[in-house]
Every structure is written in structure tokens, then in C-alpha cells.
């Protein structure tokens, strides 16, 4: 059995998916750290040894994410195309995808048949991204899991008006000092993230009733609920939102593989 592999080297974490003929044969997530080329090598070693495979068992590799150009042996595909492929395989009806990653967020609009109609990304500012949430969790001295749970409420929380990460931090600290309830502040942060994303996504959502939410931040249920309130749409989340772009990359890789029926 030979596998197609999709490697997604993101700003925060690196993801790998092995794909057999019909299903995912294994997936891995590690932190990217300061060297994207090393992260790619490391996760491939990890995956291969975990599955007791050699290099030859991987018939085709597609790399995506910010670090894709550091993987010489791979075909490079942008994470926007990979995300669209991966999400369509999980949600065949998906039309709008919101992907919030470590340093950016993207909104992708698909045509009925699944190809990309249009997309948009945040400009060079961390507001509304995973990095923003990490900084905010630091203020409360919480890890990301505890932070997500603390803000998982049905409330919009306190008003955090600023769209800038640095100024939002100041705002949060002033809410703390005037004694606002912790979960209200954290809910407010999640609402602010959702509004920020919605400002870009609004044009794409149109009259769509549901939106697929993916990327590392989609593991945060507090943000997912806030996004539901802000967009007024059903929010669908993959079981493993971190790996959907790597899955798409693996699917593109599988297409490049020789057809086993023809036996070459």
C-alpha cells in the first residue's frame, strides 16, 4: 500500500496527513517553531516511523501553508486551494469557509461544484487570529484550553471595541481593573474576534445559512458560539479542524498518484 501525503506548515503548527485509497491512514500535529524546513522534516520522520513506513511508501507529497516553499521535494499548493479541497470532502455542501489560523484568517467562497469563487485574507495585523487569542490568554495566565472554556458562554460579554491586538490588550486590562467578571471579559474577546472576522466575511456569506469554521482556532468552542451569534449562521466544524488543509493537500497529492488499476 502506498500513500499520498499532505503537509501543512503553518505559522504556529505543522500538520501531516497520510491518505490511502479511501481514507485517512494517519495524521500528526507538531509545533512549527523557528524553522519551517526542520518542522517539515521532523513531522515526516515522526509519521513514517509511527506507521512503520519508508520514504518509498509515500508516492506523492503536496506541501502547503506558510512554510511550503521550504519543502523542496514537494509540489506546492496554496493553503486556500488545499483548505477548499479538504473542507469539501468533509462537507460536500459547503459554500463559505472561515479559516482562522495562527497569524491570519481567511474567508473562502466556493462555487456549487466546489471550486473557489473568491477569497479574502486579513491584512498584516494579528487582530482576530490565533496569536491574538494566545496573547489574551496570557493576560489571564491561562492555557488555551482553559481560556476557551472560560469564554464558552451564551453572552456577548463586555464590549471590546478595538481591532488592534495591542490596544485590545490595554482595553482588557482596564476591564479587569474595574472588576468586570472574568468570563464576561473573555466572552467579549471572543465576540471581538468574531466581529473582526465577520467584517471580512459578510460580503461572502450573503444569504448563506451555514458556514464551515476551520483552522486551529475552530477548536475553541467559545469563539465558535460567538461566531454563530455574530454571523447568524449555523457553524459547522470538522472533527479535526487543525488538519483540514493538510487533508486537502493529501487529496491533491492522491490525484497525482499513478492509477493502481493501470498497475504502474
Amino acid at each position, binding site marked *: 500500500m502506498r500513500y499520498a501525503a499532505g503537509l501543512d506548515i503553518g505559522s504556529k503548527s505543522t500538520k501531516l496527513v497520510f491518505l490511502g485509497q479511501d481514507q485517512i491512514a494517519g495524521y500528526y500535529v507538531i509545533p512549527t517553531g523557528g524553522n519551517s524546513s526542520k518542522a517539515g522534516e521532523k513531522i515526516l520522520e515522526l509519521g513514517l516511523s509511527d506507521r512503520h513506513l519508508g520514504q518509498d511508501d509515500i508516492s506523492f507529497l503536496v506541501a502547503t501553508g*506558510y512554510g511550503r516553499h521550504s519543502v523542496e521535494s514537494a509540489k*506546492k*499548493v*496554496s*493553503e*486556500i*486551494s488545499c483548505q477548499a479541497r479538504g473542507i469539501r470532502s468533509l462537507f460536500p455542501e459547503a459554500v463559505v469557509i472561515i479559516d482562522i489560523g495562527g497569524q*491570519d484568517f481567511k474567508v473562502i467562497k466556493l462555487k456549487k461544484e466546489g*471550486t*473557489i469563487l*473568491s*477569497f479574502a*485574507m486579513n*491584512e*498584516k495585523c494579528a487582530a482576530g487570529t490565533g496569536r491574538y487569542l494566545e496573547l489574551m490568554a496570557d493576560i489571564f495566565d491561562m492555557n488555551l484550553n482553559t481560556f476557551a472554556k472560560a469564554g464558552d458562554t451564551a453572552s456577548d460579554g463586555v464590549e471590546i471595541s478595538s481591532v488592534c491586538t495591542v490596544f485590545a490588550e490595554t482595553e482588557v486590562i482596564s476591564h479587569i481593573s474595574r472588576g468586570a467578571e472574568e468570563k464576561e471579559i473573555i466572552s467579549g474577546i471572543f465576540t471581538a474576534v468574531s466581529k473582526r472576522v465577520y467584517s471580512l466575511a459578510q460580503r461572502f456569506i450573503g444569504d448563506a445559512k451555514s458556514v464551515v469554521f476551520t483552522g486551529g482556532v475552530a477548536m475553541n468552542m467559545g469563539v465558535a458560539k460567538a461566531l454563530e451569534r455574530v454571523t447568524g449562521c449555523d457553524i459547522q466544524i470538522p472533527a479535526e479542524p487543525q488538519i483540514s488543509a493538510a487533508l486537502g493537500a493529501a487529496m491533491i497529492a492522491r490525484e497525482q498518484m499513478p492509477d493502481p488499476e493501470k498497475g504502474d
Partner: protein
Amino acid sequence: MGKSAVHGLERLNDLYNRKESVAKEYRKQGKKIIGYLCYFAPPELISAAGMVPYRIMGRMDDEIIQAHNYVEPLGCPFIRNCFEQDLKGNLDFLDGRIIPHSCDTAQRLYGIWKYYKSASYNYCLNVPHKVTPWSRDFFKRELHFFKESLEKYGGVEITDEALRNAIRLYNENRAMVRELYDLRKEQPPRLSGSDMFKTLIVGMAIPPEEFNALLKEILAEVKNRPRGGEMLPRILFWGCIIDDARLFELIEESGSWIVSDDTCIGTKSYLRRIDTSHGLMEGLAKGYFEEFRCPRTDRGPDIHRFDYVLDLVREYDVQGVIGYTLSFCDPFKLDYPDMRDYLSENEIPMLLIDDDYSLSHLESIRTRVEAFIEILE
């Protein structure tokens, strides 16, 4: 410039990398170098006065530091960067400086620039903001004032013969540039958009007769190239001023050909000739104002003002448009949604890159450009 060992595109790259030092060489020969910001000041008039026109450009890889002391940061980053270059002494080879009222930042910077770092010749050219027969006549009159001021500064008379000759030289530039553009209609083209763009940048830094010589070499070289490069999606580039080839190179490295454009260092300046059949100044007023389609000049809200872009799309067999806007550039930013919708109605996708004239987030731009090209494939 003397005999040089390199020719054509190799010579082009050399000139592109040292355009300022080339201008300095002309100055050593005793020529006056006159900088002009923006397209509205016709270089024909400067050439006809026996001086060397030099289009003032910024340096995208150079951070604005000193200019912050004189201009607030909420203004056009390109114009602030040009001023920064002069404050750093990088434009000291300019004897004079012409700033047309192309936009408000340019016009206000004229005063600041003249006050804090005056050149031996400073001129602000008044350019109307709406196209009407009266504003065309007004601009024509302004060109006469500009001519008189150049004559006074240079101690020369700009004769009709000298002006006619200068217009002829620039029209020769335009004719050869058009020929190069025509060659890019081939699929695949034999000349990249990046090399075309560098050619035009160099053309705005050297005298027109020198540019004619360079264009001849490039044309000969490109025509001799064998056909058959890679078949890739064809892009039209639209947007604000850009004077650095890196973005063009990134777009083409990502798997496309830039085959046409709607930019001021591009088709806007070069695809039409100056028609002197109704008079020299009449021809300049028409070419540099009435027919020069910069969004800073109001042509009414009708979306058909973009028909010419669709014509370019069809003529050059373009699959997608990549736009580039600068922070605080209202004329372009306010045109963008209309342009995007108009192209979308005609099933031409468009990607917008918004920047602060620094290209500092080049890798994030690369992701967008690659994804956009993947859509076109």
C-alpha cells in the same frame, strides 16, 4: 553614454539597478536634471528646454523615518517615501523639481518640500480634477505657464521646433513600447511583464533619445528569441503607482505571465501617441490630461468608464486581474469596488493587494497570488 559592452535586456538590468548614478553622469556632462513627480508634467517640455527629465521615484525597501518629522503618517506612503529619499540625500542630483497637483498629498508636499529643502527650481503644476472642454483649455494655459517658467529658469527659449522634436522622440519611445506590448499578445509571450516594467522604469530616468536606442536593442533581442515558453495564466495588472519590479517578479514566479496593465508606468502613458495635428500644446493637453485615465480625475460615476480595461483584457487575452492599492490613496481605493464588480460581471476574477508602499508582507502576498493563480488554472 559611450559604448557599452552589454546590450538589450542585460543593459536594461544594469540601468535599472543604477538609474540614479546614470542621472548623475548626465549632470557631470553639464546637463540640468529636472525631477518630476507623477505623469502630469510632460517631460517633452523639459527635454525641449535642453534639460534631462527624471521621474522621481521612491525606494520601497527603505523605511520612512526622517519624513515623519515633516509630514503626518496619514498620507500617501509613496509621496512620503519620495520626500524621504530627498531628505536622505538620495535625490541630490536633481537641479529642479516639478510637482503637479495630481492629488492633495502631492500638492501639499510641494509646499513642505520647497520650504524645508528647496531645489534651485521648484514648480507646482495646476491640474484640474474634472474633464470638461473648459478644464482642458485651462490645463493648456497651465502648460504655457510651465513652459515660460522653464524658459526663465534655463535661460533658453523653447521653440516650436525644439518642442516638436521632443514630442517626436517621445512618440518614437511610445511606438516601440507599443511594439513590445504587441509581442506580449503571443501565448506564451517572449517578454515577461517584469522585464517590460523595468524597461519603462528606466525609460523615465534617461533622455528619450537614449531610451530609443535601448528600446531598439530590446526589440531586436526579443524578436530573435525562439517561441515556446510555458503556457501560463495571463494577468493584467491594475492600480496605484508602483516603481519596483519585485511584485511583478513575485506574480510571475508564482506561475503566470503579466501581459498587460492599467498603470501609469505602463499602458496609461505609453499606448497612445501625442497627436500634434491640432497644435503642440493642444496635443500635450489631450494626451497628458484629457485622455490620461488616472482616477484622480473625475469622469463621472458611470461604470462604463472602465470599458477600456475590458478592451485591454480582451485584446491581451487576460484571465485575471491583479490590483494594487496604496494606503490612503482614495482615488484608486474608491474606484476598486466598481472595478471589481464590473470585471466580475464580465467573468474576470480580480485579486486586490493593499500595501503601504513597502511590500514588507511579501510572503503573505505570495499566498494570495498563488491561490489566485490556482483559481485561474
